[in-house]
């Protein structure tokens, strides 16, 4: 064997050795073999979670704000004063025209035109954001929730370009920072839920952490019946009953993302 051959063999075996070692590491589990990880028995489960938002039941400014605050407070969502450019929001108000672009018309009655809708992540059945994410940081769970793994997000913002509903926010600033007037961006810090870090994308995650221990999403609980939550695949669920009885619409259905939020617009007396 000459020197050249020796180096070739030595090089190849080093590469193989390293590859072998990393393969073993990849399969090594951090928990002992005898340990198990499982669902909490209290967890709420479904085939496909969905929401019904009945805006006729949201009457006062306070009705909306209660839902928004419930969500934003427990999830440490920062509130930006006057800095709309860098705003982070999970659930918020939009008027009819912004919620359902293209469906407004010049003769629409003023009540509809001014009516506010609560918008948040649609947890689409065919989510465009999941399709484009290069790291599976955003992914669809088996129960239909479109999750965001803030640990894995690289902040490329492809999902923000892909989402047709503007549901996603990027942390341009450190959410633990302050407004120009010195007030903290996170008004009341929840001790039980993390904040986010600079440079990741976030959005509504359908309170997966509450479902896991048997609680309804925070906005649903605060909405006094205006937002319903349930299994869209279960014909006996409350959401399906409402969808079956009333005329409901979804945002931008023509794009085929199959949103899981159904809006009741007309109010029960017109239905």
């Amino acid at each position, binding site marked *: 064997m000459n020197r050249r051959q020796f180096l070739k063999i030595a090089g190849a075996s080093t590469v193989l050795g390293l590859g072998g070692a990393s393969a073993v590491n990849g399969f090594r589990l951090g928990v002992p073999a005898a340990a198990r990880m499982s669902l909490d028995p209290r967890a709420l489960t479904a085939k496909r979670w969905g929401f019904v938002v009945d805006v006729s039941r949201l009457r006062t400014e306070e009705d909306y704000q209660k839902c928004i605050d419930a969500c934003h407070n427990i999830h440490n969502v920062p509130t930006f004063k006057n800095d709309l450019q860098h705003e982070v929001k999970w659930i918020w108000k939009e008027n009819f025209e912004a919620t359902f672009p293209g469906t407004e018309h010049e003769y629409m009655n003023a009540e509809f035109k001014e009516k506010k809708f609560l918008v948040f992540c649609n947890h689409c059945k065919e989510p465009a954001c999941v399709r484009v994410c290069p790291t599976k940081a955003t992914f669809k769970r088996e129960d239909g929730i479109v999750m965001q793994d803030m640990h894995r997000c690289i902040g490329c913002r492809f999902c923000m*370009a892909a989402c047709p509903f503007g549901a996603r926010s990027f942390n341009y600033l450190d959410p633990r920072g302050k407004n120009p007037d010195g007030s903290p961006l996170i008004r009341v810090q929840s001790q039980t839920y993390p904040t986010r870090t600079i440079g990741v994308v976030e959005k509504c995650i359908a309170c997966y952490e509450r479902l896991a221990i048997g609680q309804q999403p925070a906005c649903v609980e605060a909405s006094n019946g205006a937002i319903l939550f349930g299994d869209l695949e279960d014909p006996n669920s409350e959401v399906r009953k409402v969808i079956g009885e009333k005329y409901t619409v979804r945002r931008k259905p023509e794009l085929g993302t199959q949103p899981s939020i159904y809006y009741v617009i007309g109010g029960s007396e017109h239905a």
Partner: protein
Amino acid sequence: MLEKALVGSKRYWTWIFVLLGIIGVAFLTYLQQLKYGLSITGLSRDVSWGFYIAQFTFLVGVAASAVMLVIPYYLHDYKKFGKIVILGEFLAIASVTMCMLFILADMGQPMRVMNVILHPTPNSVMFWDAVVLSGYLFINLVVGWTTLGAERKSVPPPTWVKPLIYLSVPWAVSIHTVTAFLYAGLPGRHLWLTAIMAARFLASAFAAGPALLIMLVMFVRRVSKFDAGTEAIQSLAKIVTYAMCANVFFFLLEVFTATYSNIPGHMAPLKYLFFGLDGHNALVPWMWTAAVLAFMGIGLLVNPLTRKNEKVLPIALLAVFISAWIDKGMGLVIGGFIPNMFERVTEYTPTGREIMITIGVYAIGSLVLTVLYKIAIAVKESTAGEASHH
């Protein structure tokens, strides 16, 4: 061969140190971005991609355009390109390097970039873009270095490099196609949702890339003994001419479909770009400049008298290059986000720091290009010298 980049005139070293200085300042600015996040840019919740991604998109085209030399030379045995094909490949290397840096500069969490490899996701176009771009960089490095090394020793390049050269042809098309797919497959972004996007990208790339290359070749001729030859320059100029015509034609197709169909969503971004929307018109002067330059460039290039005039030619090429840069490096990416998903207009202007980082990346690209061209030209000068001695 790298040692050839270490000997040069005073002008060469001044240029190198100017570039290093710019890179240094830009790096300090980037450290600020690492600390304060992308809030130091003009980006927003509504316009979430801007200058960085637009430069990336534009430069993928410049990189892909090397194929406009490779095809004639290697597939059609067009010998006139023999002297400059290496310059095209080295331009591709510098461009892909800049592309990767722009992606990195745009990331919110750049230290997590390896997640793309750790969690490979074939359904994401971004994943494929990473794959094809690194592959293209690798191919051009190997091909460029090997063929130049062979030329230095005055021997034909090794046979194993031929398949790689042929592979580089579809690969070049793939990098710009995949980059177009980043945009063209997104629901709800009307400006981008068009089947002709990849074709438009390639046309604009094959205009802007070779235009830059000709300008570089003409510059090299002035500062060194290396002359690519008038015929090579003229052939390349014809490629620029046809590609730019196709580019403008494709764009007009977009305008027709949007306006004749009269669908508001499709018209809105074009309206914003060329006339302004809801009183917002930051890009209007830029887009009209691009339009005027495009037609001016085409006019000067189509006419053989002006194209063959080596005083007018650089002006025509510069017009084409700037026009394509405005179209892709500003209009296309930013226009896609306006109006936003709620039919409102949030405008975007890059900040000073954002522009500084952008200039820094271009400086790194220029440094890579300078070093590579220095080596290539030194090799060519010495082999030419030997040839004349024999």
